[in-house]
């Protein structure tokens, strides 16, 4: 197993102290982001809202491009090359653009955004991402009036990604959002975590994160963003349409056909820790419920 150099990581206790210091003086870029998070400002912040350790976040991953076991991505992604990296924004837009990773880092300032990640498998983590709202990136193009959805395409490189040599999913990984979901301020372009560059196993160099949806909606290592007219078929919908819907909002009342979504396990808790109740929209209902008003979420799972 590859060990992290100690010097590479800000010790978590210092990291957390730094955060509480920033919070106490109350003038940080992240203050705004934090207020968007349902639990940070509440005094009843409980066990479930504690930051997950850097080690767990970076060694327990679902990233089938690098293997189907949770420990595979960390092991198999270390030599993955993320430079040079270009992202195209195309499809139903007036003028498609191509941006390099350097251009993106210059154009947009990443801020800390602490969100809970709820996996469809029934576990959750709390991750201090670094990123910015996807709407900022998308505003660089003008979509035509035909554009209704946004499609995300991840990198296809079987030479570097051993998992892509097998037909586990229909590669490249594909995901999608409705435009209003994509433009929502909580929908984040992620460039880092714990104040550091995004590790390969977490989707470097650039991924999206949608806090109120199951983790698989948040595509990693994105190379193409495409505005489209029709609802895209994501890789998981293609694999099993009955189990994975387009919306895939975290919803404790709608079970996955094979397992219950009513409760979840918190990553990093001990053997004796109980399951906790899953929150509607992963706890982000105040911000996002209006996107789905009038919709039957049992049908639109």
């Amino acid at each position, binding site marked *: 197993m590859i060990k992290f150099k100690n010097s590479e990581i800000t010790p978590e206790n210092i990291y957390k102290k730094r955060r509480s210091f920033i919070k106490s003086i109350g003038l940080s870029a992240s203050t705004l982001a934090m207020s968007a998070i349902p639990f940070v400002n509440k005094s009843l912040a409980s066990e479930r809202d504690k930051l997950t350790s850097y080690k*767990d976040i970076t*060694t*327990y991953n679902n990233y*089938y491009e690098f293997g*189907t076991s*949770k*420990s595979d991505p960390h092991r198999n992604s270390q030599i993955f090359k993320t430079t040079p990296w270009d992202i195209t924004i195309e499809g139903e837009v007036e003028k498609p653009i191509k941006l390099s990773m350097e251009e993106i880092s210059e154009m947009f300032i990443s801020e800390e955004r602490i969100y809970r990640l709820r996996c469809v*498998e029934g*576990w959750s983590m709390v991750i201090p991402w670094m990123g910015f709202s996807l709407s900022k990136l998308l505003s660089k193009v003008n979509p035509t009036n035909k554009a209704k959805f946004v499609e995300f395409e991840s990198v296809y490189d079987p030479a570097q990604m051993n998992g892509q040599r*097998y037909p*586990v*999913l229909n590669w490249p990984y594909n995901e999608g959002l409705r435009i209003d979901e994509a433009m929502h301020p909580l929908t984040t372009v992620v460039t880092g975590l714990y104040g550091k560059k995004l590790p390969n196993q977490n989707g470097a160099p650039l991924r999206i994160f949608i806090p109120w949806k199951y983790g698989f909606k948040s595509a990693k290592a994105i190379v193409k963003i495409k505005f489209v007219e029709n609802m895209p078929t994501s890789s998981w919908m293609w*694999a099993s349409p009955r189990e994975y819907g387009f919306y895939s909002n975290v919803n404790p009342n709608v*079970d996955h*056909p*094979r*397992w*219950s979504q*009513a*409760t979840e*396990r918190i*990553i*990093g808790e*001990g*053997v004796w820790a*109980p*399951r906790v109740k899953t929150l509607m929209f992963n706890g982000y209902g105040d911000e996002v419920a209006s996107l789905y008003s009038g919709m039957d979420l049992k049908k639109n799972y």
Partner: protein
Amino acid sequence: MRRYYKTLVFFLSLWPLYVISYQIIFNQLGPEPVDRIINYFGEWTLIFILLTLSMTPLKKITKSVEWIKFRRMLGLFTFFYASIHMLSYVGLDYRFDFDPLINDVLKKKFIFIGFSAWLLLIPLAITSSERMVRLLKQNWKKIHRLIYIIGIFGVLHYIWLSKTIFFKPLIFLILLIILLLFRIKITKSASKI
């Protein structure tokens, strides 16, 4: 020497228990310890089913009856690990909260089939003694053919709970099919004689 084989197999079969105890004591179960314990015993249950099913083919291949001596013990270890697997799910994960459990068993097909497989193991464990073999005579063989169904249920349980068949569930499926094909061959060649 040969009379120690059984003792040796017995202590080797306890290997999964040594490993998991070590991991529990030294906190090496990883980020999702409960899930790890459940999956760990589930996988070992399947391995023991396959081992149990391997004894008859090994007897045929090596032309040595020696293997059959281990079959009962391996079968009982299957039941042992299956019970720990089931109990860790019921007790550790759901804390004996039976409402969601009953809901799971009835609504989730992978739990239904897994639980059925465990139930089917009970009569096999009960009738495993030498006395029962003598008591049940021809029926004993018939009852113990349930292990084929249990094997199929067990592997289906694994396939259905996995998000993709790649690769472990697929490996178990292939091994089970090979072992079951041996049975067809064996009964066919037996009927020729």
